[in-house]
């Protein structure tokens, strides 16, 4: 039985208060044991199939392909129950919480997708659920707040800082410091202290494992490029991981350039950040010269985060994956384009990956792009931005 990764090159680690160390050890041991437990994994597989609706299709987007000048397959995570890849992780961690005997779960959320996914998994398993959400995000994402409440979750507003995802995550970790003895913290991305980056990656890897097999079935060969958006980076690491050993496959992570990398208003930690510690791990962060973590900016709430999972920082340094950035404006245009071309309204997060694809026609082969979520949640924002 292999141990969970704590470090990815120099990145990762457990930069958290001493109070949490015991719980992180317990979580790592629980997952190392559970993933080898056939009965536990059979239950997870059954719920993935019948509750989430997996496997998600790998869809040959013909009109998008025509426009891009090459065959493009979309990995349809938008068709999952609750509308995004987030449920893969939330369900897995909720099952793990139940296995550890923890009856109470806390989570952070930005736009509300991870909060809704966690509230959904907790409703399914009868767990108590508290979601921390910045008060600015609560204002912007009222429908998701209502969904969480309907699902039985308590939504706790966070008033610190810019009142968005960074502060909601800090608040959830602080709360966990005080409730760690009976509560499991379901982090929403492949970030945070070890073992979370490896745990979340393992739970999201289903995206890549399916996509790799589906691509081989459809084309008889591997894709030339695998493309995914990167905020905290969980959908990207989930799809990349299955292709990391296939050296001929290019892995492209698309970050949020926001109003431009030079504007200071972006979410591109890997493209324009520094090495630092945020939310318990050493990775790429957006910080000032004094070491203060800065607010990120993106039109897409899911990419509006000044850090990124540590495995991405390592994949960047090793050269195995490339990270690029797409602006708010480009993402909004791609959002409209995919909607018209394919009848699929993509999440603004995924629209960043679409925009990069449209601007970077490859040479030989075909592409697989992770359509990480659906865009219904973004309609109000898009209308506001594009008038």
């Amino acid at each position, binding site marked *: 039985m292999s141990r969970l990764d704590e470090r990815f090159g120099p990145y990762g680690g457990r*930069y958290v*208060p*001493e*109070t949490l160390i*015991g719980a992180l050890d317990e979580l790592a041991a629980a997952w190392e044991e559970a993933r080898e437990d056939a009965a536990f994994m059979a239950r997870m597989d059954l719920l993935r199939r019948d509750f989430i609706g997996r496997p998600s299709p790998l869809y040959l987007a013909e009109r998008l392909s025509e426009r891009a000048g090459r065959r493009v397959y979309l990995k349809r995570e938008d068709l999952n129950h609750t509308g995004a890849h987030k449920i893969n992780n939330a369900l897995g961690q909720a099952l793990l919480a139940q296995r550890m005997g923890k009856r109470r779960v806390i989570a952070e959320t930005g736009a509300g997708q991870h909060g809704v996914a966690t509230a959904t998994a907790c409703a399914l398993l009868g767990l108590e659920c508290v979601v921390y959400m910045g008060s600015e995000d609560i204002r912007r994402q009222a429908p998701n707040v209502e969904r969480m409440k309907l699902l039985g979750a308590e939504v706790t507003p966070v008033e610190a800082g810019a009142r968005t995802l960074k502060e909601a995550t800090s608040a959830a970790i602080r709360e966990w410091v005080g409730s760690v003895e009976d509560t499991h913290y379901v982090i929403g991305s492949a970030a945070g202290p070890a073992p979370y980056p490896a745990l979340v990656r393992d739970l999201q890897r289903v995206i890549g494992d399916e996509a790799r097999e589906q691509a081989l079935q459809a084309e008889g060969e591997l894709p030339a490029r695998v493309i995914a958006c990167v905020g905290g980076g969980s959908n990207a690491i989930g799809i990349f991981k299955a292709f990391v050993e296939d050296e001929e496959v290019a892995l492209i992570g698309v970050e949020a350039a926001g109003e431009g990398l030079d504007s200071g208003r972006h979410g591109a930690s890997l493209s324009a950040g520094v090495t*630092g510690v945020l*939310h318990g791990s050493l990775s790429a*962060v957006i*910080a000032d010269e004094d070491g203060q973590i800065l607010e990120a900016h993106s039109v897409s709430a899911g990419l509006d985060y000044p850090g990124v999972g540590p495995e991405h920082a390592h994949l960047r340094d090793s050269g195995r994956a490339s990270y690029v950035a797409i602006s708010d404006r480009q993402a909004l245009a791609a959002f409209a384009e995919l909607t018209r071309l394919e009848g699929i309204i993509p999440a603004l997060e995924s629209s960043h990956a679409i925009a990069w694809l449209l601007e970077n026609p490859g040479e030989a082969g075909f592409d697989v792009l992770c359509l990480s979520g659906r865009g219904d949640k973004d309609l109000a924002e898009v209308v506001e931005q594009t008038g």
Partner: protein
Amino acid sequence: MGEARIAAAFAAAKDEGRAALMPYMMAGFPDRESSLAVAAAYVDSGADLIELGVPFSDPLADGPTIHAAATAALEAGATFATALEVCRSVSDRVPVVLMAYANMVLAHGGAAEFARLALAAGAAGAIVPDLPLGEAEEVREQFAAAGLALVPLVAPTTSPERRAQICAAARGFVYVVSTVGTTGERAEVPASLAALVTATKADSEIPVAVGFGIGTAAQAAEVGRIADGVIVGSRLVRAASEGGSPAAAADAVADFLSQTRVALAG
């Protein structure tokens, strides 16, 4: 160097038959001038050591009071340099232990350079609350090489095996976290604290101080009967913000600290 100063401060208090008093303050809060006045007032009111918080944007170990103070200090323009200035202003009178999050150490040149800057400002030690055993080794060695003591934390959730390892590697003193939670005032000292302090003292060859949740002179006295040192944080940070001027901030903290010092001696 730093270790010896810390040891001497604890020993001097012990000679007087009481626990050492270590008030916490946030550098640059509510503004630069007030924090300089607060530091001076701490020394004048009987602080044996000072724990000096370096403001950071994302302090995961801190509760609402100290988190808000860090945010306010940063908004008022505080930086690491402000913390060094406050340190320098009192470090020839009492040992100063910086409380700095890991990213501040990293952003200021890494452990060796951070230690050099801290030493130049007269600091005796540093607490890095998000650098637990397992992450701290290199930083502890670099700090020790420069003469800066890396003070580790022990929590109620720390296993006995791990606690022994933490104590074996500790420099300066061992910081016992009184409760499962972040910093902030609590109604009561947990009943389980005495056992935790006793066990930690058995593991440690250096002084054991207790912090988190101590907000009254009576609580300080209660903890002082079992620990070598008592750390008071959020209650004093709250006092520092109430005056509205540097002199008023100094008066407010001096008032509380003097009472606490008397209670400890009692």
